[in-house]
């Protein structure tokens, strides 16, 4: 798994539960390094070990921890650049939902080896979408659940999101997520100026 993703998980653990917990995770998971480095690649087994150790130490079901991680990715202030990149997906939440099909290509434009889930969008009726996502580790739909809820808030959209099962075919797991739009323009949403960041 890409260092950026491991590092994001480490950032989530330290910001939410404190450095002490991270030290414990590192010890118990026998992590051979002090910190994950963003610009490199780690064996998936390491990612899994760190994640499983965290859920055990926190006595939390993995789906709920992953959901919190998804929310963290969008709402943690130092990660605002990521929120902004996601907002480029569309000017409304429905447009953004459709842009998730491009997420993998978008990510790869910037980091060709980044593990981004493959997402397909299906519109069931006027206000209901069903997303299917494939990733190399289980749990992507829970991360998306937290992340998309936060993005709906960001757009000022009122929506109900729920996990919608998992299928396994030919060794590839596909996870599903349902998005029901109640009010696209429910609230103001957070500001997104195109030219806000002058780097």
């Amino acid at each position, binding site marked *: 798994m890409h260092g950026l993703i491991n590092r994001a998980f480490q950032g989530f653990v330290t910001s939410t539960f404190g450095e002490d917990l991270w030290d414990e995770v590192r010890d118990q998971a026998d992590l051979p390094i002090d910190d994950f*480095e963003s*610009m490199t690649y780690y064996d998936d087994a390491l990612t899994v070990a760190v994640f499983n150790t965290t859920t055990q130490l926190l006595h939390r079901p993995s789906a709920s921890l992953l959901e919190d991680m998804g929310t963290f990715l969008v709402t943690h202030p130092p990660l605002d650049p990521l929120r902004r990149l996601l907002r*480029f997906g569309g*000017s409304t939440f429905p447009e953004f939902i459709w842009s998730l099909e491009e997420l993998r290509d978008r990510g790869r434009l910037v980091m060709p080896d980044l593990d981004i889930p493959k997402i397909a969008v299906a519109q069931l009726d006027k206000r209901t979408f069903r997303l299917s996502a494939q990733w190399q580790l289980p749990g992507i739909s829970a991360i998306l659940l937290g992340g998309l809820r936060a993005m709906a808030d960001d757009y000022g959209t009122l929506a109900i999101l729920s996990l919608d099962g998992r299928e396994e075919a030919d060794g590839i797991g596909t996870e599903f997520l349902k998005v029901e739009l109640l009010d696209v323009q429910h609230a103001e949403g957070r500001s997104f*100026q*195109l*030219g806000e*960041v*002058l*780097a």
Partner: protein
Amino acid sequence: MTAMDFPKDGVPISSDGVFDQLMPMHLRLSMDGIIEHAGPTIRKMLGDDLVGQAPFFSLFGVHHPVDVMDTETLFAAANQRIGLILRRKPDLPLRAHLARLPGEDGAIVDISLGLSFVRAVAEFSLTLRDFAPNDQTVDLLYLHEANASTARLSRHLTERLKAAHASAEHQARTDVLTGLPNRRAIDLDLERILKSVDEQFTLLQVDLDLFKEVNDTYGHPAGDAVLRAVGRIFEEELRRNDIPSRIGGDEFLVVLRDVVEPAVAGRIASRIIQRIEQPVTFGNIVCQISASVGIVTSAQYSTRPSLKQMMEDVDAALYRAKNDGRGRYALHASLTYPIQDRRSAIDRRTR
């Protein structure tokens, strides 16, 4: 195909409305070069400049093709890339292309931000809605921000690596027990000092006397405590510029910068010996040792010596100090200076 085919935010009432949706940064010019209509985004960019019957050339300059000077030559540049300059913001170059309308209806000029898009978007507070939904300028903005983010990550990585490298370097040059520079570090320093030929210095080789006895009698922890105490003595007795180092089990090498007076070097050596002779308490053990010191100064050589030469000479001086009874210093005997080692000289006379 009529405008009715494109109902989006309401039904366009004219071809201008259709073009506004398709090309929000377009202008429609009359045959005499008057801006008769402007798309919503370009209106935002032109602001108050666009009032009444504004001639195209009053708001825009044409950077290239160079033969465009008036409406007629502008119209002749149809289908070429036109470099435009917005007169109110000449530092934001724009790109345009022009297509003639049928008959005498004038022309459509479609404008894009070109590579000034980052500044232009900030300057005019443009939003996603100011671009046609299929306009890839927005993707360029995305890429621009994403690149800035990854560049930041790379920069942080480089900084962390630099810090880690510096700390590894420091460790590789430091004696763990005393915290003093080690053999490798002092050798590098000496090589460097010897290369700058104007720099004069004195070398002290300090060898602990009776240290082996402390180690053998009281064990290594006691010996380590003694070595740490010696390390502290160097740090306290030497000037900031001087370089102490531990080069072996009970051997230390000190560079006194800018000191060549044998009398001064001798005083420093005596003081170091005195301090080392003060007993060190370790638990309920009291350890007492002494030290012998060999001294050589760079000024004792008529030509710049090699490190090897100086080390041999200071070693010989140390050997003499040891031979003469320990707990004393001896200066390297050279042709340049007479022997300045009074204690040794007295010893020799009285022997």
